[in-house]
């Protein structure tokens, strides 16, 4: 290690921990996201299983030091398999009083609290709405408090560089990261490497950040502020090669993979919106894959251009969040009517209206299922973890092109930005996506359907002899010519529904985590996967009769779901909404399922789900 120890080190005790949850919190200009991500990488390289939760304000640069300008990043790392970013904190690192105020509630008694003493100045305390400094009023006595001189030590480390104060302050996060890396035995090489790459073009910044990081590490090692350090052993992770990945990156890669495996190029029409924009950014870097990214003039043009590209024979994608879903609804209806493939990606955020743009929610489900005029059924697929976004995106494309239908892919703001280790597949191991463009004019009708899938043929314009017209008007069952015939309309409505039902043949038998039958079945969808899994496993370990089913397909629902539900006495449906899947399950299966609903712009804590399960088991 490139750390320079000063003389021999006193041997300090090392405490072993199974899991640690640490949160870095500071002003949105303090670089907390970078700090968190680097700590994540360090932990991944240390062999731990990890889960992360970034939490940042919608304001890009809120006034410094304010409560609403606080940005945080939580990392959970463990020597066993974990499914969530963690409930309660073991360590809270705060860079200013505002961060302390907004995050302290999540630190249990006796938790480690590291803060930057110099930042607890009169003006900063005032901005954080403290009348008395929490350092003076004894309110922090119940924590293991480490008021470090982060600002002072960083300044000292960079003293001879003659940097402006502003630049020095920007290195504080790396000092903090250095301290925490030492405290938890994290290798700092990955971060040194990252800094070297990231600041290649600004050698001064590069040097300053490296110095700050090393100074922080040495500070932990050489001072005796911390009585002990902590080690978290590697987790029993399946052997293989890993990388870390966020949901949005995984989504983008899933699309590219499906394009590669089908040999059909991607067209993405999109309008920037939080938290979906990163998928656009990501895909824009894959031009050498033939990926066309079109930043449209609005959400409607985003989906419209995608539909135009689908008509031209591209894998058409649009990405958005709730407000954009509203605007795209009419075009999704057209896509359903003309039966062209397309993936509409809804990276859900808290609503209604602008709501809380950077916070996750699952309240767009009913909109995805039903939010179009007329009878316009559309398959709906949801990703359950950041890594799963890759496979869900891949599957959404496959279903769209196989069944000639728009597909709604749902993730959310939590999955979008959270990350986890991914034992990524080899391209060769991914299944092929079969796309067949019709070229034979013999016996061609635009709405002649495949027997197995009920899909109509996909014809690329430019194919001689297959010139035809499609449109939003109701069309004849076979020829596609405009038809207002009453029975034809009913036939078309019904066949579009039957096509959805056909998709159930693509859904593998539902995986039940736990016993096949029993007392309580917990049914979830989307990003609640981790919390539900962790909670259910707790009870299973205690021998309780609790099982878990997590749905990938929300439309159509798996063919075996009704029968599975029937094998359990009770059904619990935790959702980050007012009970949308619950409503669907109650309606479809006449089951007296119970909801657990959290609408706080934050994922469920494991304990919240556990508490509900415990109550239901007692009843």
């Amino acid at each position, binding site marked *: 290690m490139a750390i320079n120890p000063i003389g021999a080190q006193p041997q300090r005790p090392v405490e072993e921990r199974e899991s640690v949850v640490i949160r870095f919190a500071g002003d949105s200009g303090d670089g907390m996201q970078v700090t968190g991500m680097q700590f994540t990488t360090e932990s991944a390289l240390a062999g731990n299983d990890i889960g992360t939760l970034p939490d940042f304000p919608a304001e890009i640069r809120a006034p410094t030091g304010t409560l609403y300008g606080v940005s945080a990043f939580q990392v959970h790392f463990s020597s066993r398999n974990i499914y969530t970013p963690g409930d309660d904190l073991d360590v809270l690192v705060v860079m200013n009083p505002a961060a302390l105020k907004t995050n302290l509630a999540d630190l249990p008694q006796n938790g480690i609290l590291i803060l930057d003493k110099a930042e607890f100045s009169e003006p900063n305390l005032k901005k954080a709405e403290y009348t008395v400094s929490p350092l003076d009023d004894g309110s922090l006595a119940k924590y293991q408090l480490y008021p470090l001189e982060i600002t002072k030590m960083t300044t000292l480390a960079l003293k001879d560089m003659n940097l402006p104060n502003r630049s020095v302050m920007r290195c504080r996060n790396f000092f903090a990261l250095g301290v925490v890396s030492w405290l938890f035995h994290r290798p700092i090489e990955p971060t040194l490497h990252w800094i070297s790459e990231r600041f290649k073009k600004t050698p001064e910044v590069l040097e300053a950040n490296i110095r700050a990081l090393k100074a922080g590490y040495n500070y932990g090692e050489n001072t005796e502020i911390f009585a002990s350090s902590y080690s978290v052993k590697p987790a029993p992770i399946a052997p293989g090669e890993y990388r870390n990945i966020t949901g949005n990156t995984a989504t983008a890669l899933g699309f590219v993979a499906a394009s590669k495996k089908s040999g059909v190029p991607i067209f993405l029409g999109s309008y920037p919106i939080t938290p979906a924009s990163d998928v656009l950014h990501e895909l824009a870097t894959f031009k*050498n894959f033939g990926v066309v990214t079109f930043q449209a*003039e609005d959400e*409607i043009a985003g989906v419209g251009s995608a539909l135009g590209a689908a008509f031209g*024979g591209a894998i058409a994608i649009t990405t958005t969040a709730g407000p954009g879903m509203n605007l795209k609804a009419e075009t999704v209806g057209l896509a359903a009517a003309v039966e062209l493939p397309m993936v509409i990606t809804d990276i859900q955020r808290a609503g209604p209206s602008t709501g809380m743009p950077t916070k996750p929610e699952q309240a767009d489900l009913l909109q995805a299922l039903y939010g179009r005029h007329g009878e316009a059924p559309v398959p709906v697929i949801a990703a359950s973890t950041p890594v799963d976004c890759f496979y869900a995106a891949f599957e959404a494309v496959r279903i769209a092109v196989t069944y000639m239908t728009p597909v709604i892919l749902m993730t959310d703001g939590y999955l979008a930005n959270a990350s986890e280790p991914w034992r990524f597949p*080899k*391209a060769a191991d991914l299944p092929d996506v079969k796309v067949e463009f019709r070229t034979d004019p013999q016996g061609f009708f635009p709405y002649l359907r495949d027997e197995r899938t009920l899909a109509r043929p996909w014809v690329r314009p430019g194919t*001689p002899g297959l*010139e035809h017209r499609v449109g939003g008007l109701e069309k004849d069952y076979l020829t596609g010519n405009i038809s207002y015939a009453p029975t034809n309309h009913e036939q078309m409505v019904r066949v579009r529904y039957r096509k959805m039902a056909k998709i159930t043949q693509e859904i593998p038998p539902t995986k039940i985590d736990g016993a096949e039958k029993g007392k309580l079945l917990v049914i979830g969808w989307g990003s609640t996967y981790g919390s539900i899994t962790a909670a259910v496993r707790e009870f299973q370990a205690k021998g309780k009769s609790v099982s878990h089913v997590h749905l990938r397909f929300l439309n159509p629902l798996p063919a075996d779901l009704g029968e599975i539900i029937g094998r359990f006495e009770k059904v619990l449906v935790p959702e980050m909404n007012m009970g949308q899947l619950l409503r669907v399950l109650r309606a479809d299966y006449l089951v007296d399922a119970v909801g657990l609903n959290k609408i706080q712009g934050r994922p469920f804590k494991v304990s919240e789900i556990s508490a509900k399960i415990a109550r239901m088991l007692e009843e």
Partner: protein
Amino acid sequence: MSTASTASTAKLTRKDFVTDQDVRWCPGCGDYSILAQVQKIMPELGVPREQIVFISGIGCSSRFPYYMNTYGFHTIHGRAPAIATGLKVSRPDLMVWVVTGDGDGLSIGGNHLMHALRRNVDLKILLFNNKIYGLTKGQYSPTSELGKVTKSTPAGSTDYPLSPMLFAMGAEATFVARTVDVEVKHQQDVLSRAARHKGAAFVEILQNCNVFNDGAFESLTDKGTKADAQLVLEHGKPMVFGKDKDRGIRLKGLALEVVPLGNGIGESDLLVHDEHDPVLGFLLSRLAPPAFPTPLGVFRVAERPSFDELMNRQIAEAKAKSGEGDLDKILRQGELWTVS
């Protein structure tokens, strides 16, 4: 157009572009003439039928694709330019036409039309302007004159109208032209030029709705008055008009004026039409009756790389620079570690 010719192209006639669908416009509608002229010029473009796509929105005009025996897509209200943009960018080999109207293109879809024009997407955009909402049975449109009495404006409309020409010029479209439904030859010439323009070609076609706004362009099309009402623009020619070719357009300060020829005013005093002059194009766009004749023809032409061309060039460059995308390479991006 980088379209591959098929053996059949040479033999195509107007009839090859006619579908077996009944045309459902009202008898006497100006749309019939436009359909006929478009079908007439198609075989002369040398583009195989299967390479041509007509995309429309909603409205009377937007039924157009059903009657063209090419590929076609009748979409939703106002969105045709957006849908066409996606098609053209992903399939630059196709020739893409957009058919829209004054309501579809300038009211509900004004945003998309503006962006398609300023981006210079290689689309041939035909805007049928009948100054009325026909399909919804006779409400005023964004091009209806102020004070227009319709079902929705019994006391007269209080909306100031939008000029399609000024709109297109404002968006800096690279081809801006106007023609009239009944001027068959003129229409064919303008359409042919639009078809051959590389970039966004915008053509306003003044079109009579004989049911809800009959006679909206009567003075412009009536045999007795049209010579005085039309200013037919020809590149490089002085702007002369009138039954006896006795009037012209002259520049006065920063505006245009109508002057009688004779009494010391000759053709050399008149403005000479220059399609490449955007300022002149803008001045012409402002000319309107009753003080001025209505200009017809190509107002402005500019050369600028089209959006689809630029987008696809970036892709070609990326492939040339980094090679055809390797999926394994991007799956392996970032910090990797091995668990054994």
